[in-house]
């Protein structure tokens, strides 16, 4: 396995910005799968063992895919600089739904105005909320993906609500009584 292949695959992992399969690497580089596999193994050893203390990145195998990512100990600080993939206005609507669920779309509209119609569509298409016809309006709840996405350790609406309420109380008391 040549040095050149290794560098090439490293560059693919870097630029992909998401986990990639051997097949995807093959399509990008035209290298035979065997060579790709060997190169990936050496890269993993380089990053995770040999140069462990000389890099803040690591290469991991996730399922059948490979990804270059920031080591956990640097993640908290560095991750904030990348763009979040949910717009902050959308987040507000999502937070309202999570707290008040199950909530009628018409009530949500009364809370936050007509912009919520678009937000509901978008959140539903992201599979973060679920909308079900209820008389002349829609009834909205969060989906199973919601706690997964935010790392909340429960799927029960009441517990999600408690969780959110607690967090808000904490963040308020922090402001009022710093340290």
């Amino acid at each position: 396995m040549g040095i050149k292949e290794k560098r090439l695959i490293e560059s693919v992992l870097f630029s992909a910005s998401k986990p990639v399969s051997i097949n995807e690497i093959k399509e990008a580089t035209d290298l035979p799968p065997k060579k790709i596999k060997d190169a990936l193994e050496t890269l993993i050893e380089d990053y995770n063992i040999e140069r462990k203390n000389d890099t803040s990145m690591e290469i991991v195998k996730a399922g059948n895919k490979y990804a270059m990512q920031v080591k956990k100990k640097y993640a908290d600080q560095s991750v904030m600089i990348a763009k979040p993939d949910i717009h902050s206005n959308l987040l507000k609507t999502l937070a309202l739904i999570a707290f008040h669920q199950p909530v009628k779309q018409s009530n949500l509209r009364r809370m936050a105005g007509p912009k919520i119609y678009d937000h509901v569509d978008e959140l539903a298409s992201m599979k973060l909320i679920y909308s079900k016809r209820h008389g002349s309006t829609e009834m909205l709840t969060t989906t199973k993906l919601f706690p997964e996405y935010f790392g909340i350790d429960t799927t029960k609406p009441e517990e999600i609500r408690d969780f959110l309420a607690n967090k808000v109380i904490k963040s308020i008391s922090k402001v009022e009584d710093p340290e």
Partner: protein
Amino acid sequence: MVQLKIDDDVINHLLFHKSLIDENDDAKRINYYVDMLQKANEGDHISIENPFDRSISIAFELVMRQQLNPWDIDLVNFSTMYLKRAKEEKIDLMTAGRMIYMAWKVLKLQSNDLVVSMETVDEESEEPFGWGDIPTGTWIENDDGYSYTNLVMKMPEPPLDEPIRRNAKRKVTLIELLDAFDKARVDSEEYQLIERQRRAERLRLSEKARKRMVGTAHEDHVEDDVEAVWEKIKSFNGRTMSLFELCETRGREEVIKTFMSVLFLAYDNKIRVYQKQFPYGKIYIKNMRYS
């Protein structure tokens, strides 16, 4: 009443506009239109009592029935068809005429808005260098510049490479979610307060507008107006004239009145109405007896 299938184009058109606007009255209005479309679809517009809503409903029905492109409505044509339908539906013709007049105005306003917003975007661009020392000579300022230009034009590849960088987006963090939650609560309270004020104001304005409409509509004598305009057109002896040549004054009432009459005459095939430039060009009228 003929059952009409809701036209996807029309719905998409409304939804597109809804997605462009932020919130407020506009989104509400568009949602209201979508409801109305539903009614028109069920042939239910007769039951709409408010004459304004009914005339809007008829407009939708026309667009769907005639399969007009909602992005590209020929207003001259549309106006003629619209007035015919309005007559059949016994909509107060003056109200119908005003609707069309407003449609033209809205269209014009929208295009002005577009120009304004494009200009603002331009001004936001950055201007990194001073403009004090702009060279006034020809672009071949020296040999280097000349050969550079020549080489760039002949090279197979440009001398600029786009670097490959990552394009990672992260998930939203919980803190951001909570932050959003807090802001949502504040926004929601503000919104409800403003909405109450808005509702009161809207009510006041629509009452006012309705009173004004009802007051003048009874004083109009459409048939007489049409007759008078027709006499005037005949007096041009076949010469093509502009709409303004038919108006006694340039006042808004007069222009609406004349335009309405012109549309009736066009519908009766007595005249042809056209524009050289669509949609804001002058409106021309030709007497069909001479064509």
